């Protein structure tokens, strides 16, 4: 049969086959180019510039950027200059170790960790309920209801909490009408936790839902049949299956709340300065120390990067069965 085909066609087939590897080589580049250009221009480059600024102690807008006194790339070849750059780096980054600034960073951490913990406790039962107990036909509806708050501006959502928590606000009006005393939580750390938790909760629920949806119930039944009590079933059968989802959502919430500016700013009080505000003050405040601000930013970026690295490690670990 094959002999009946005229020769030119086979040549064409060969051509296509020969051309294919070229396209294959190009394919990933073409696919990644739009996002890649975007990322390089708007994420990688700015980060590199911030890093460069962090090497110039006390730089303010209007100054010349010369890390360690270097004005030209040729000077990079001289190792004497590397020493100067190192000294400049140490000057900026050492300032972060000042107990005052460490305290600010510690506060950012405790806000982020606390919010993650509260979110986890609140979101897990909800996600479990949506994924396992809500009838199939209602499931999407319930999910949308949970994601609905994300359709409005995050600033607006934080602002709404002011009207709820303020001394003459909704919460206290209700409390007072029952004869209960006024709760003064606005402008306290408690309000910041509430605001942050509220902001991050939908994301937590979504990710936990995605992982709980795939929960293999037969394993839970098997565990129960083999005599495990409900607590043991949870720890030995449920949790190992969803631990990746728990880790992923926790890290996401931690990372987003670590750099949160809006909630501490609007809901916090006289002593809730966080890392984000500290950085803001360095750039737009009176001192305008962009060098120190950049060093703080790089430190925050490093912390988040470490968190993401941990996430990847945990995310890839096969769940124990």
């Amino acid at each position, binding site marked *: 049969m094959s002999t009946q085909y005229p020769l030119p066609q086979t040549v064409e087939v060969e051509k296509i086959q020969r051309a294919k590897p070229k396209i294959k080589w190009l394919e990933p580049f073409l696919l990644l180019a739009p996002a890649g250009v975007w990322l390089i221009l708007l994420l990688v480059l700015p980060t590199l510039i911030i890093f460069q600024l962090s090497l110039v102690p006390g730089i303010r*807008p209007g100054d010349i950027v010369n890390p360690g006194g*270097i*004005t030209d*790339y040729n000077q990079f070849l001289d190792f004497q200059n590397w020493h100067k750059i190192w000294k400049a780096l140490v000057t900026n980054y050492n300032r972060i170790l000042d107990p005052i600034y460490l305290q600010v960073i510690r506060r950012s951490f405790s806000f982020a960790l606390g919010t993650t913990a509260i979110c986890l406790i609140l979101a897990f039962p909800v996600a479990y309920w949506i994924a396992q107990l809500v009838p199939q036909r209602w499931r999407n509806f319930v999910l949308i209801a949970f994601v609905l708050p994300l359709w409005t501006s995050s600033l607006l959502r934080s602002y709404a909490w002011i009207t709820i928590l303020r001394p003459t606000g909704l919460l206290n009006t209700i409390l007072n009408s029952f004869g209960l005393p006024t709760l*003064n939580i606005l402008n306290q750390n408690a309000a910041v936790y509430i605001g942050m938790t509220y902001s991050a909760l939908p994301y937590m629920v979504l990710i936990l839902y995605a992982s709980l949806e795939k929960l293999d119930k037969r394993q839970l039944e098997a565990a129960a049949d083999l005599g495990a009590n409900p607590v043991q079933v949870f720890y030995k059968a449920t949790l190992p299956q969803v631990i990746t989802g728990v880790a992923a959502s926790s890290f996401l919430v931690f990372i987003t709340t670590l750099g949160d500016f809006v909630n501490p700013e609007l809901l916090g009080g*006289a002593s809730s300065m966080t890392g984000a505000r500290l950085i803001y003050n360095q750039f*737009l*405040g009176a001192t305008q120390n962009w060098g120190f601000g950049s060093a703080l930013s790089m430190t925050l970026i490093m912390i988040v990067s470490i968190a993401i690295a941990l996430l990847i490690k945990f995310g890839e670990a096969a769940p124990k069965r």
Partner: protein
Amino acid sequence: MNRRNLIRALLSLSGLSLAGCGWKLGNVRANATTSEQRDQLYLYTWTQYADDKELLKTFTAQTGIKLFADLYESNDMMQAKIQAGGGGAYSVIYPSDYVVQKMVEKGLLNEIKHNLLVGVDNLFPQFQNPPYDPNNRYSIPFTWGTTGFIYNSEIITTPPDDWEYLWKNREKLNQKMTLLNDTREVFGGTLKMLGYSYNSKNESEIKQAYEKLKELKSSLAGFDTDAWRNKILAGDLLLAMCYSSDAIKLTKENPKLQYAIPKSGTSLWTDTLAILKSAPNPTGAYAWINYLLQPEVSAQLTKRQSLATPNRAAFEQLPKHIQTKPTLFPKEEVLAKCERLSPIGEAEEMYERYWTQLTSA
């Protein structure tokens, strides 16, 4: 390709070369004036100064120049944006007195061509040759005022007449008062209470002020420059440290609120009109400044927005009850105790450190 070129090529590949070394952080470029830009004027101004829509409308009707206003709520923020090169669109800015000094030092402002202006001689003598800008070389005063307290006079029956009031009544005002979110003003007021200068550069004095503020902090609802407005109207706050320009307008709308000037002295500020070096539309800028220098316009602004006019001809047009309003136009002996904020140079770092310590502890 030798080693040097290779390294350079690698560096440029890494994208670093786009930033390079020895570049200037923030490049303020003068824009070429095109016909399109000549009929629009961008202002960069304080939040409340663009409130008066009638003022803007009349100007556009008279000159055909369309006005656009961007807002800022602190001098620092405005300065950072201009210096970082983000101010290319603006022709007129509204820096406060000591900021004019700072911006002149950095070469950001154009000298005012006084031959293009009409009515500068209408200004009160002290505004024709202000200490921060002799002979108005770089700026024209727009309005002036003080820093003080706005308070709810229904509940606070004895007026907060001095800084000490906050410390003495801090139990009563617990979580019901705010201070400005401004390092210099907050420290300045406390320094004044301790009998020092608003512009102290002395570390031990600043430290004492810090200790005082630390005592007060647990009673504060926060440091707010703008957000106190809604809270005091709703009754969540009883007292807020604020600028007179913000306060007096509010007291007019809501008679239970009152404004008080600390009697041991406070900061006296002038907000000015200045033209940026990079201004894309200087002609429009002069038209705008000339417009605001007209006594009628300035008087209207005082009547409608409760902004104290620095213009004598405008002042004379005001009705008696506004002229004698002690909060808007304080008496000489009150003003004599006040101080202008002045640039403090290196001491800025020290203030910042104590401020961070205060707001983070």
